[in-house]
């Protein structure tokens, strides 16, 4: 009983009335809060809360008059006057003048829309809170003072305190940029149209998506290049995930096998690839397989080959190599994970099966694998989608090479080992900086990855009891 009152000490809305009900049943002060925010709270003694509402309202109106309306009005066109050049007779040169800035218009336009949404939500909250205070007063309950609200931030409402900074960061540095980039997919923002210095950029509707799916140009068309890269991306993700998975489990079983000594030594040697920063090992191994690298040198010294092999110049070799080197990088992770899980498999399962005459291969097939798959299914999914976007391994090993001579429509020198993600990177950093195409690709990647995730998750049904039982 004592606990219950404690939990209710800081409750904000003790009734469950929604906005409409609050407004309809509210008294004059509550209704007036629709025009003067915070009024309803203030007349019932919640001065600080009322003041904050009012301050937000005033600032919002001032912002909308001063700049918000400008950004909104420019949003449909993304700028009207581009940069101009005027002849300066004195210096005998053209002096550029920069005018509208499409980038800023889009950015602040989006921010203004966010702000309007936030304002509407706050406005509704203001009425709900006013009605809440009204009800409490009528029933003679205690109305939260400002100091109670502040206290609540370290107690019942501590989650707000904890979440504020991380959520602010995620909103500003992940959510907002992604929203912005989704819009970019419908503009012509690139190096030649950077929105300010070179040229304005503007809305182009679905043109960029049409370009991606266009067959014009036959073999070298965007769509053909896209299909080729998509096929390889899926194949790569499949090979990379499952090769690591099965080999990693096998290695873990070998190290944990009864009677094998120096377990710690074997583990430590493998874990080196996790400990050493990946870019060093990847770059170095990539150079080992260069035409003039150590591997060719070794093979020629042994007399096994006569001329150096150009591993990174041959599409098939390059593709096999990235998968194999990825195994070298990936087995240790799986070995660590599998070791932990293998120890959890009840030993009597093995004992019983041995008595029934099962051999080690059967044990692996019917006990170890089903158990592993059951426990690590979500991990397999994330590692599959992670591999689809495995930028580092591809970019640092092969750089996407060898270049595909047929892929003329796509810039950035797209190659046979390029994944969608490295292609996107090359497009954005390419000579024309076609950000809009990068953005279109980003959206396509999102659609593919989320479709796979959804399908698998629904098939698995293993997300049903996410930590809620704790």
């Amino acid at each position, binding site marked *: 009983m004592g*606990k219950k009152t*404690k939990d209710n000490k800081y409750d904000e809305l003790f009734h469950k009335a929604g906005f409409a009900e609050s407004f309809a049943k509210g008294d004059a002060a509550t209704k007036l809060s629709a025009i003067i925010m915070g009024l309803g709270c203030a007349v019932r003694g919640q001065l600080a809360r009322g003041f904050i509402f009012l301050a937000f309202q005033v600032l919002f109106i001032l912002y909308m008059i001063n700049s918000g309306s400008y950004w909104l009005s420019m949003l449909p066109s993304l700028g009207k006057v581009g940069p101009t050049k005027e002849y300066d007779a004195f210096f005998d040169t053209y002096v550029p003048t920069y005018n509208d800035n499409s*980038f800023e218009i889009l*950015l602040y336009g989006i921010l203004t829309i966010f702000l309007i949404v936030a304002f509407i939500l706050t406005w509704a909250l203001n009425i709900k809170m006013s009605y809440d205070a009204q009800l409490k007063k009528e029933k003679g309950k205690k109305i939260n003072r400002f100091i109670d609200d502040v206290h609540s931030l*370290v*107690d019942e409402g*501590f989650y707000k*305190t*904890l*979440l504020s900074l*991380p959520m602010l*960061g*995620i909103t500003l*540095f*992940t*959510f907002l*940029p992604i929203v912005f*980039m989704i819009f*970019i997919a419908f503009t012509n923002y690139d190096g030649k149209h950077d929105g300010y210095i070179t040229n304005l950029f503007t809305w182009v509707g679905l043109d960029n998506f049409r370009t991606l799916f266009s067959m014009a140009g036959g073999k070298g068309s965007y769509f053909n290049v896209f299909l080729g890269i998509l096929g390889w991306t899926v194949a790569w993700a499949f090979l990379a995930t499952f090769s690591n998975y099965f080999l990693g489990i096998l*290695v873990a079983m*070998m190290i944990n096998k009864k009677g*094998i000594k120096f377990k710690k030594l*074997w583990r430590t040697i*493998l*874990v*080196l*690839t*996790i*400990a*050493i*920063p990946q*870019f*060093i090992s990847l*770059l*170095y191994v990539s*150079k*080992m397989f*260069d035409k003039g*690298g*150590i591997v060719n040198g070794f093979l020629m*010294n042994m007399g096994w080959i006569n001329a150096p092999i150009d591993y990174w110049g041959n599409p098939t070799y390059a593709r096999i190599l990235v998968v194999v080197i990825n195994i070298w990088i990936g087995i240790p992770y799986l070995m660590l994970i599998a*070791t*932990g*899980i293998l120890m959890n498999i009840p030993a009597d399962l093995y004992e019983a099966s041995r008595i029934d005459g099962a051999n080690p291969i059967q044990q692996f097939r019917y006990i170890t694998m089903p158990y592993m798959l059951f426990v*690590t*299914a*979500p*991990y397999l999914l994330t590692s599959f*989608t992670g591999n689809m976007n495995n*930028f*580092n391994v591809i*970019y*640092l090993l092969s750089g996407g090479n060898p270049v595909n001579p047929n892929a003329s429509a796509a810039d950035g020198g797209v190659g046979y080992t390029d994944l969608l993600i490295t292609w*996107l990177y090359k497009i954005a*950093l390419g000579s024309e900086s076609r950000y809009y195409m990068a*953005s279109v690709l*980003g959206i396509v990647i*999102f659609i593919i990855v989320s479709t796979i995730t959804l399908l698998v998750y629904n098939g698995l049904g*293993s997300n049903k009891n996410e*930590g809620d039982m704790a």
Partner: protein
Amino acid sequence: MMSTDRKLGMKAKERIGNAFVYLLLIIMSIIWLTPFVCIVLQSFRVESTWQVGYVIPKEWGLDNYRALFDSDFTTWYMNTFIIAVVCAIVNPLMVLSMSYTLSRFRFKMRKPLMKFMLILGLFPGILAMIILYRLLKDMGLTQENAVPGLILVYCASSGMGYYIAKGFFDTISTSLDESARIDGANRMQVFFKIIMPLAKPIVIYTVLTAFMAPWGDFMFAKFVAFGTSKGMNVAVGLWSWLTKDQINSRYTMFCAGGVIVAIPVTLLFMFLQKYYVEGVTGGAVKG
């Protein structure tokens, strides 16, 4: 008589099996160690600075290491070190508050928030980089000033990686919280005085991964340092030494630089390995 025969047979079988496993493990160890041995050996090669087909130097020396200190490598190293230290302090704060909240509190927006972050996480991170680069540039935080810019980017969204730590908090019994609350502690005191001391393994895991990540980030660091050497981190800097126009004069220096970067990070990792293993294992099982 027969049973001893069988026993002997099984023992022999097991011995052969073990010998086979040993053989495989030894071969694997050689494969795993070869690149690292090679890079160390080549970093001591002084007779030439380009790639060669042999491993053991004909002339040994420390020239490459000395040359490192006269190059931009020291700047890159400091850049990366500063970023790593700041990240190791800030990221865990973000991750732990996020994961603890989502594990312990039940509030209206909890599930929508988790779905929101799951969906955000499905977008390729590079997508956000294009705009972040432009924003940082407008703030003057790119090129020479890339360090604060990179810190901002690495830290701001780090709360998204809350899964593993949340899984850990889920395993700490809530009865601890409840008994402390009955004794009059508020939620904040519970967090700092009861949960944090218990969460030492996961705190160390988050600090370790936050410290190690900046050493390996290549994608965004290359973007932000664009066109200048002063703002690079070690990954981008050493990568630039392997590009076509530099590799012939810098290859052995790359090897030396790689060794210098790898030693402290590797030692730290090996030292705290136990916590890392706990983290990844827990994370994989929880999903």
